[in-house]
């Protein structure tokens, strides 16, 4: 019998890279959870997009960010990609983030993604993102604006299957 919550793929970097892509994601799960634990080789921002779509302008998000002294909210609309961080992390720092892709293969709905992001040096944040496309998500990419994810950075994609 199929597992309910199982790893689809995992990557622990043996060499630095500026992009991680999980591709050929099967449509057999209900939700996807992507857990990232990147270490940065430079001070950099990083972003995500799905299905190779990094130019359609179909992404948007609402965010809640705490930076150690205050909480704030912001919004991104009509974007080609969405950033996971709000404040640029320091070089060599390590972050954790968890992304929930709800009903990622449901072709009746736009895709809603819930994100929790933590960088002990700069911020803790939550985000809700929208990809205004009803296509099933078949790939997820995480990429940097500059520099690279360092050796040892870890990314794991899980599938959750409802009864």
């Amino acid at each position, binding site marked *: 019998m199929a597992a309910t919550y199982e790893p689809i793929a995992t990557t622990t970097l043996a060499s630095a890279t500026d992009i991680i892509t999980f591709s050929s994601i099967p449509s057999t799960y209900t939700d996807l959870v992507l857990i990232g634990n990147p270490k940065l080789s430079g001070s950099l921002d990083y972003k995500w997009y799905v299905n190779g779509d990094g130019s359609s302008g179909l992404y948007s998000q609402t965010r809640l960010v705490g930076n150690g002294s205050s909480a*704030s909210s912001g919004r991104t609309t009509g974007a080609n990609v969405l950033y996971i961080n709000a404040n640029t992390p320091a070089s060599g720092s390590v972050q954790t983030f968890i992304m929930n892709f709800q009903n990622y293969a449901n072709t009746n709905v736009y895709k*809603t993604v819930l994100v929790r992001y933590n960088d002990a040096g700069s911020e803790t944040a939550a985000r809700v993102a*929208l990809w205004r496309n009803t296509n099933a998500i078949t790939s997820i990419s995480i990429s940097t604006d500059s520099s690279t994810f360092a050796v040892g950075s870890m990314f794991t994609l899980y599938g959750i299957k409802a009864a």
Partner: protein
Amino acid sequence: MFNPILGILASSGAVAGGSYESIATTTVGSGGTSSITFTDGGAWASYKHLQVRALVKSANSGSSFDVVNMTINSNNLTKNHYLYANGSSALAGVGGTNSVINVPTSGYTSVFAGAVIDILEFSSTTKNKTIRTLSGVDTNGAGELVLYSNLYAVNTNAITSLTFSISGVNIAQYSHFALYGIKD
């Protein structure tokens, strides 16, 4: 199974998966439904915690936001605190005791709210129950993100049912609620 009266596609029965298992799922069919209830028929006994993962929309007209309420064992919850963000401001407050998910209305075509609800030690008979939720919706121009913390202190009975509804209006078609059990 399709129930044309309730307009719900539902399934139940655990899918084996180690310490995290699927208990039951409801997908709302054409016409929507006034409420969704998960009831313990004995299947919850082997779990320590429950998690509900949802994708939800209100059938209300217009382009605004409604709130999904949750009741436990047919009782209202006791307390609710939240952190809220709407794209321009962030605030904390005390809200409607049953509020767990802020959802878009039907004017936001194809847009649904996402939510992950954790119900810890649901079967304890010595503790009040705490529920935490990460929920949010973005519409490309509007949106609400809320972290809820709810308390159920009506009694310390084990939780045996969860009901979700939106005041005065149906939960819309394609909304999806999935209940999972987590073992210790």
